[in-house]
């Protein structure tokens, strides 16, 4: 029986379409898996159903009746509950209090209602203990119980529920989901992990670039088909190989740091090496260890055949490294400060004499790189927060280009960058490699990896599991196929 039917959902964020005409049907008593890469539109679609985003076009119907949600409150009243990836429990309160948080109820019926909700998901958690004493898996269960505490819950939306769970804990979660669907609930399950899809889902929908690519029963969609649909056929070609690469620039031997275990690889001058993998595969941790942002536990690093160890980013930068972090606002730029200041930040010493900054030279150097990278800004004195995401990213790139650079490391080069500026950022990185710089790119976007990189290295659970000759093969390796 159809519970929710969404038709032609369109969501635009400032002119960019996050969803363009997506349909979704949820059936009571079954699990519907929502698949797609980062940025495919999964979160947006879930938020539309949960009432936190109002679509620009399209309709949502429940039991055949059109509904319009202006806030999560409306969706909850209609029986749609969402469990977010980040848990929203209050650590110092008991399980009972958390489960009934927001669901106003008479104090004396509280324990019973909480017990009912926990029983419904087949959990044996003590309702009187404080939530902070529970494991993450149990906290997740409490979160689900909380979502189901209201009597009318009909639809449960789970966003990457297993991202923080161990294998055994996943089994418990799946048992819980089975119990819920057995009682007639419709579950929308969003995940990167295709083996989970095969285990629990009966329906699958694949999104890519905000579009509906395929939707149907699991039986008709084997894993290889889903992967191809997620990635897109056009990128399923072999990664291109540059013919003219130079000597080995950076060699990493058996590196371990935090979550990263025993990683060995090298990058040559003139080569772009891509690191692909799921979120939390250890890619960002790996490059942070290389540039000295995180301590190294074991292993050796060599630049031009000479061993080195960076205790902080400053040491690595002096050796010729440049680093474009994933979180541009938090780690890349001083958002309220000027384009000029952000551009010259890493090379200020070379623009100064007796520590006094040569302002005219600083201005001319900044102007030169603004022109060369075609950064669109009113002036070099504009606060960088007023620039678009793509232009901000170019400012961070320019920072490294205005000095001697041997190895550039770019974490997620086009996150939050519109499509037009992406091509320009790819051009900047390609030109840099063509000019002899060794480049390491970390990306979660396989299309990007295929377009930009000469070699793809795949990481999973902190380890380097191999080199992929083509993007679709890399996609399969990422998820453990």
């Amino acid at each position, binding site marked *: 029986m159809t519970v929710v039917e969404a038709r032609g959902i369109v969501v635009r964020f400032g002119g960019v379409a996050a969803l363009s005409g997506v349909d979704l049907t949820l059936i009571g008593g079954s699990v519907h898996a929502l698949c797609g890469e980062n940025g495919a539109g999964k979160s947006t679609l879930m938020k539309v159903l949960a009432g936190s985003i109002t679509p620009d076009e399209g309709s949502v119907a429940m039991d055949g009746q059109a509904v319009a949600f202006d806030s999560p409150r409306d969706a909850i009243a209609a029986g749609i509950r969402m469990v977010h990836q980040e848990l929203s429990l209050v650590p110092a309160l008991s399980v009972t209090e958390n489960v009934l948080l927001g669901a106003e109820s008479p104090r004396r019926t509280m324990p019973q209602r909480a017990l009912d909700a926990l029983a419904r998901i087949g959990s044996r958690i003590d309702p009187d203990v404080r939530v902070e004493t529970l494991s993450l898996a149990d906290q997740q269960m409490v979160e689900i119980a909380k979502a189901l505490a209201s009597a009318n819950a009909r639809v449960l939306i789970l966003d990457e529920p297993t991202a923080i769970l161990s294998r055994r804990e996943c089994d418990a979660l799946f048992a819980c989901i089975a119990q819920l669907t057995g009682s007639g609930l419709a579950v929308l399950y969003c995940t990167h992990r295709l083996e989970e899809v095969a285990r629990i889902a009966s329906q699958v929908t694949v999104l890519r670039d905000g579009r509906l690519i395929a939707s149907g029963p699991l039986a008709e969609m084997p894993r290889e088909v889903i992967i191809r649909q997620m990635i897109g056929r056009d990128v399923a070609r072999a990664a291109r190989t540059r013919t003219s690469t130079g000597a080995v620039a950076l060699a990493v031997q058996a590196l371990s740091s935090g979550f990263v275990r025993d990683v060995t690889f090298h990058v040559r001058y003139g080569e772009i090496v891509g690191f692909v993998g799921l979120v939390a595969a250890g890619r960002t941790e790996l490059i942070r260890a290389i540039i000295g*942002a995180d301590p190294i536990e074991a292993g050796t690093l060599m630049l031009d055949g000479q061993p080195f160890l960076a205790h902080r*980013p400053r040491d690595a930068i002096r050796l010729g490294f440049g680093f474009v972090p994933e979180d541009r606002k938090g780690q890349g730029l001083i958002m309220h*400060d000027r384009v000029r200041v952000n551009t010259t930040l890493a090379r200020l010493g070379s623009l100064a004499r007796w520590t006094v900054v040569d302002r005219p030279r600083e201005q001319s150097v900044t102007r030169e790189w603004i022109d060369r990278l075609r950064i669109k800004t009113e002036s070099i004195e504009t606060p960088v927060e007023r620039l678009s995401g793509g232009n901000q990213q170019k400012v961070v790139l320019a920072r490294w280009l205005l000095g001697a650079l041997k190895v550039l490391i770019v974490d997620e080069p086009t996150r939050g960058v519109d499509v037009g500026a992406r091509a320009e950022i790819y051009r900047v990185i390609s030109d840099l490699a063509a000019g002899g710089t060794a480049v390491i790119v970390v990306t979660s976007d396989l299309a990007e990896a295929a377009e930009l990189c000469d070699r793809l290295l795949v990481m999973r659970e902190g380890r380097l599991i191999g080199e992929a000759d083509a993007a679709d093969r890399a996609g399969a390796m990422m998820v453990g196929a």
Partner: protein
Amino acid sequence: MSEFASAFFSVANLINVALSIAIVGVLGVGMTAVILTGGIDLSVGSGVALVGIVTALAAHAGGSPSALMAGILLGGLAGAFVGLLVARWSVPSFLVTLATLSIERGLAYWISGGRSIGELPAGLTWLGQGIVLGLPVPVWVMLLVFVLGWFVLTRTTGGRWVYATGGNEQAAWLAGVDTKRVIFATYLANGLLVGLAGVMLAARLGAGVPNAGVGYELDVIAAVVVGGTALVGGRGGVIGTLAGAVFIGVLNNALNIANVDPYLQRIVVGVVILGAVLADQARRRILRV
């Protein structure tokens, strides 16, 4: 009213205002730098008292030049101590300087036995009471410190790094700025200025006074904040601080001349500071949209 105007706008009175803000102004330059890194120094009032006592003792023991050196060095030492704790061990500056506020005041009383140490040599008192080219020496010192502070903060690599560290410490660190060293150096510089201000205060009072400078930290922070420097760091500068110090000095002076009840004066100053800060917030909000 005209009586007020003629009293207020007399040259003697304007010089008087400048003199009244000289010490707060010198402290304000250091405080501006500290606040630009995202920190704070609550101990400057105790600092000037302790420095004043030690300066007075040094003056009796070794004369004026060594007293000046001893005062500035002691300030620098105290600043380095705070800087080490804040930069190296990431202790919040609020807590460190709350502690040194108490320690330094205690030391000032303990060393002096609670008594003022007077009869300072003329060379030293000249620093507080002398006149050069028609202006009091403390006013010249303040102007010099402001020019120096402005130059360092806006024209040198170190100044740029102070702004970068306060603006986004993570980003600055990942771009190769030695943020810990920048923070340490800022507290060291601030400490040297506290030393200078402490010598100036003792020279002006003609004595090292253990309970001098009580509440200075609030006057200094008020001048910095009214001057538009953001307490979260990264934005602002010493020109604003000078304007803030002048503003508060003029206000106090005008209330004095207008014969406002001293108790009421403090209330008025507080309300005006609040108004200035709120107006600045509103201006920022409007400009952003």
